[in-house]
């Protein structure tokens, strides 16, 4: 059994968000972090590893500096890592990215009892599309918004956290799960992990190594093959201070209704 975790290096939005003159994100000038939901996916995989002794492989698509992130995840306990990196893959939107990652997962190899895990969504795009699209491309079941999970044999019982409640369902492996922060608290790297991380295998999949897969069609990968194009990125202007109406009487309600009507909200 093995678990493949897809992770993304994202700009640290707790700092300043920098935008290039052409409207794209100036990633080079921003600090990067591992996408927070992806950290929950890694932790879930490592917990299963602690329980079952399975192998955990982390996969990312990105430029070579993303190898630093992969080493950190292996210092947390992942056994191996794959960097998917090629000029041809640059500028991919979620559709193209999921095709490339699905091809990478196929190359790593999926056994009947394997699991693919992703974070729910990345904090830079907030689309929550890549995980589900990978599952579609690989033709396997998917469960999103995983807040709790237990594995018994080849069945995983998952508690999904929805806006208005929980849904508990069972899914058979191989499957793909997208994880949310309520699932766990990611562990820190350990000293022993740090001192062994550079001895662990880190493979790079470039265009040459994936191009024979039917999913890698030059017409549907990279910037040119992406159906979505970023028109403009910008930092929204700060909102002004809100108005707080005191009191719970009819007069206050009428005042509130008046303000909302004035702004054409109601």
């Amino acid at each position: 059994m093995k678990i493949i975790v897809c992770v993304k290096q994202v700009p640290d939005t707790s700092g300043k968000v920098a935008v290039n003159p052409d409207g794209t994100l100036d990633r080079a000038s921003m600090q990067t972090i591992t996408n927070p939901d992806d950290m929950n996916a890694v932790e879930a995989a490592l917990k299963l590893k602690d329980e079952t002794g399975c192998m955990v492989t982390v996969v990312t698509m990105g430029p070579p500096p993303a190898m630093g992130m992969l080493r950190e995840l292996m210092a947390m306990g992942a056994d191996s890592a794959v960097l998917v990196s090629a000029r041809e893959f640059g500028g991919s939107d979620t559709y193209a990215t999921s095709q490339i990652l699905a091809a990478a997962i196929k190359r790593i190899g999926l056994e009947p009892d394997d699991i693919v895990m992703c974070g729910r969504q990345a904090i830079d795009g907030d689309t929550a599309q890549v995980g589900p699209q990978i599952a579609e491309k690989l033709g396997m079941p998917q469960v999103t918004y995983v807040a709790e999970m237990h594995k018994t044999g080849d069945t995983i019982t998952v508690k999904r956290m929805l806006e208005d409640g929980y849904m508990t369902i069972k899914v058979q492996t191989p499957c793909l799960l997208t994880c949310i922060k309520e699932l766990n608290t990611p562990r820190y790297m350990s000293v022993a992990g740090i001192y062994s991380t550079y001895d662990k295998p880190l493979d790079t999949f470039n265009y040459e190594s994936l191009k024979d897969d039917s999913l890698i069609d030059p017409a549907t990968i990279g910037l040119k093959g992406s159906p979505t194009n970023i028109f403009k990125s910008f930092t929204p202007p700060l909102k002004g201070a809100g108005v707080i109406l005191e009191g719970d009487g009819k007069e206050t309600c009428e005042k509130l209704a008046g303000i909302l009507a004035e702004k054409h909200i109601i």
Partner: protein
Amino acid sequence: MDFNLTREQELIRKMMKDFTENEVKPIAAETDKTCQYPRENIEKLFNLGIMGMIVPKEYGGAGADDVSSAIAIEELSKQCASTGDIVATHNGLCCGPIIQHGTEDQKKKYLPMLTTGRKVGAFALTEPNAGSDASKGQTEAKLDGDHYVMNGSKIFITNGYVADVFVVFAMTDKTKGTKGISAFIVESSFPGFSVGKHEEKMGLHGSPTAEIVFTDCIVPKENLLGREGKGFGIAMQTLDGGRIGIAAQSLGIAEGALHEAVEYTKGRVQFGKPISKFQNTQFTLADMELGCEAGRLLTYKAAKLKSDGLRFTKEAAMAKLFCSEHAMKTTTKALQMFGGYGYTKDYPMERMMRDAKITEIYEGTSEVQRIVISANMGL
């Protein structure tokens, strides 16, 4: 010449920065206020392998280098010097001499205890009449068949009332002066071992300091560390290494205070502008930054020399002396920048200033460091 940290050292820094921010910072003020030993965080530091990180892999540690160990203590001390002190003592003063001078049997028994076994370590040298002049210790250990009988007491022992394993120095032959001192590994469970007074201190409130007492304490003969009569050398050599830990702790305190001062002065507006825009503030902050950089270089150099197996006595003394005095200066000046607020417990400055003071005193006072440095100048 390379001033860059290794890839592993960079990761240790990142790991400890995250840990300190998430786990240490939120409880630092409360730890100080209640004088509570930060037990949960020390447990977590065992889990992460920070406690005993320098212990070789074959004995349960991670085999980390001394620069990494210094970085870990530095990062912890940015928010809580007590936690930094507990780790520095465990790693440098207890694991250190056992790694260096222990027999194979001693290493196999005690080093796993101090790492995966989660037993806290301590170092017991100081006595009421033997502080800077460590040769005047009165604690005695007399050989009686297959064990030594130890009598006496030690004071100001860091980790004193929480530790399970102590490296203790006692006279085995009072007629020989320093050549009559021997080192022992003593467990708190040995018959005749007890903990005396818990010290109430000016600072480092989370660091458990106590007197320990030996009353006909039975120490197995095989727990003699090194050869009989070689204890003074072991103590001095251990303190050389320990000083790198205190240099790192002091450096962390200074860096923590500098960070607080920068953030505060950028936000504090007086006379129509942030006080960080006044040249007097800027020059003071510049001096603090300069001292931290110099201290960092001195500390990492001493740690690197130690890791490389080279002589580092003078360098460790210089790092400890410089960093501890810089921590005191920086916390004092940073508190001044906070004005009246700095004097209150609403801000961490007064805690940092109280914590800084001890670094000029323990593991060799500033005066002792100057003796060590000048003694290594061929004067």
